[in-house]
């Protein structure tokens, strides 16, 4: 198919067919989620379930791919669905205008091959990790603060976020002071999308490790957590 010609041969025909029948849950459609959705739709993941209860605000415009001056005040999930329909109508989008909760988490994870954590607060991230463990779904975590981005892949039961976040119950991190920059979000999200695709295709990826990039110093580190 001409649409996927430039995926070849990094993605072969059999792998492309696999992606077409896969389903990925993207939780959060902001700075990370918008770019993750863009990458997964363009590469040809056939089914995307996108979840976010927020509406676009002016403060999103510095980094969130799906935001524009035309859709302020409108649901992020609606923009995600419209964007995917415009980019790749072969992709089925299940847009869920809601926050992740104890009531809906397992339903949202149902039938998903991979979940992608594009959230913006610690408690919901930890909750998603727990729900993904219960559902037996691998989770690709991403987080940003200023010039720094981080990605890790969490297999059910690994609970790696318990190492990244303290027991003291903070809900936010360094991003409160450092903000979130466009290129940091785009790069981190692209890494997340690549790890998600590798999981879908059975390719080797991050294993109990984190990948961290500092775009200010120009350095990247990958190291094991356990």
């Amino acid at each position: 198919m001409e649409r996927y010609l430039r995926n070849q041969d990094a993605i072969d025909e059999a792998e492309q067919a696999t992606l077409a029948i896969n389903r990925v849950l993207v939780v959060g459609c902001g700075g990370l989620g918008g770019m993750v959705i863009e990458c997964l739709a363009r590469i040809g993941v056939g089914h995307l379930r996108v979840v976010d209860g927020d509406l676009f605000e002016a403060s999103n415009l510095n980094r969130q791919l799906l935001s524009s001056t035309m859709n302020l005040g409108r649901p992020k999930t609606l923009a995600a669905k419209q964007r995917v329909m415009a980019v790749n109508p072969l992709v089925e989008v299940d847009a869920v205008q809601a926050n992740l909760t104890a009531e809906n988490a397992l339903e949202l994870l149902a039938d998903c091959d991979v979940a992608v954590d594009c959230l913006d607060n610690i408690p919901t991230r930890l909750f998603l990790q727990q729900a993904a463990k219960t559902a037996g779904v691998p989770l690709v975590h991403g987080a940003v603060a200023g010039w720094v981005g981080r990605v890790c892949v969490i297999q059910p039961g690994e609970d790696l976020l318990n190492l990244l976040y303290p027991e003291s119950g903070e809900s936010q991190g360094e991003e409160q002071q450092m903000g979130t920059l466009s290129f940091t979000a785009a790069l981190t999200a692209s890494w997340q999308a690549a790890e998600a695709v590798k999981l879908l295709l059975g390719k080797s990826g991050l294993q109990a490790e984190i990948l961290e990039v500092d775009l200010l110093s120009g350095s990247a580190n990958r190291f094991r957590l356990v």
Partner: protein
Amino acid sequence: MIKVNTEDYPWHPGMTVTALLDEKLFTFRHIIVRVNGEFVPEEDYEKQLIVDGDDVLVLHLMAGG
């Protein structure tokens, strides 16, 4: 020798968490420190001694999306 984020790092007697953070130039205000897997609260950084052979994890606390 100790491990800091899985890499070897020279240890010296009397090394505290604060000393290590200063030496390694960890400048973020929000940092997670675990020594041999155990979370170290910020108020203990000055008094928590690191001993030879410890496995130290120092991570930025970040959750933006």
